[in-house]
């Protein structure tokens, strides 16, 4: 048994990177495609206290405990260092890439959808050693909530403290959200991103409509 394991370990690992969006004939489909957000947006008032928008982003989960060499090559690829302070995030200067701290050895990378494959390929080519990077774009989606009453809706949904002193811009937490789960990041003064499971997207969309009803909900296509 142990000998077989030994042999397997000595084989170089096979690195397989699949482009999840190979060409225009294989379109990306949002988990809320049936909702037809663009149509709702046309009829949606613009004065709502809460503004909802779904973002179609490339999402990648990075897991590692980087040594100095790995940290350097990762920073070379991303253009920013991995945030090592718990519950923090960092966005690249051109705004294209955001890295969110998830756990001491886990980060969530957000890039434009058509950049995910390129990023993944570079990681496999340039970072050596014990590192895992998985494209999770197909399993998650991102809701962006903003508006004057956004915090009230968040407070209904999760036990997290959203007071300014506890939840500054750039902070990121993973928590319970309306009995489901979400990673919540404050991206600007009145804007929050929820990274949620694809399979919970419809349920959370219904929840958010109900929770924001009393403040008025504006949908952006």
């Amino acid at each position, binding site marked *: 048994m142990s000998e077989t394991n030994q042999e397997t370990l000595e084989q170089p690992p096979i690195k397989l990177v699949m482009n999840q969006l190979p060409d225009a004939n294989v379109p990306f489909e949002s988990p809320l495609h049936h909702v037809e957000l663009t149509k709702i947006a046309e009829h949606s008032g613009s004065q709502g206290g809460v503004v909802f928008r779904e973002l179609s982003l490339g999402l990648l989960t990075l897991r590692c405990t980087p040594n100095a060499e790995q940290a350097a090559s990762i920073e070379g690829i991303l253009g920013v260092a991995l945030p090592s302070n718990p519950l923090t995030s960092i966005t690249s200067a051109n705004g294209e890439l955001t890295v969110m701290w998830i756990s001491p050895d886990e980060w969530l990378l957000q890039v434009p959808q058509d950049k995910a494959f390129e990023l993944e390929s570079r990681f496999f080519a340039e970072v050596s050693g014990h590192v895992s990077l998985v494209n999770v774009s197909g399993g998650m989606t991102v809701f962006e909530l903003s508006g004057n009453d956004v915090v009230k809706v968040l407070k209904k949904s999760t036990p997290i403290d959203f007071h300014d002193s506890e939840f500054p811009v750039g902070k990121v937490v993973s*928590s*319970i959200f309306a009995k489901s789960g979400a990673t919540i990041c404050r991206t600007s003064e009145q804007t929050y991103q929820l990274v949620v499971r694809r399979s919970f997207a419809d349920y959370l969309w219904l929840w958010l409509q109900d929770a924001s009803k009393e403040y008025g909900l504006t949908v952006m296509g």
Partner: protein
Amino acid sequence: MFHIFCPHCGEYREEEEFHAKGEAHIARPLDPDACRDEEWGEFLYFRTNPRGIHHELWVHAAGCRKFFNITRNTQTYEILEVYKLGEMPSVVAE
């Protein structure tokens, strides 16, 4: 309702984000094949059930998904200490 400090996230969170995973500091026998049934049974099934100070394994299930230990008074429910895996408690029963 507990208000639990996660040593990995570095802040207090509500209990609903966590799961209790039973008694802490239970070492798996290094060579299970060489174990007597009694030793293996002890490891699998037998736990202390103290009234007072108890060391427990918890996981921040909805947060960072990391495990850590809590020293808790089972009588008053007071959490006396939180510490990472691999560390030893400083608060112990007399």
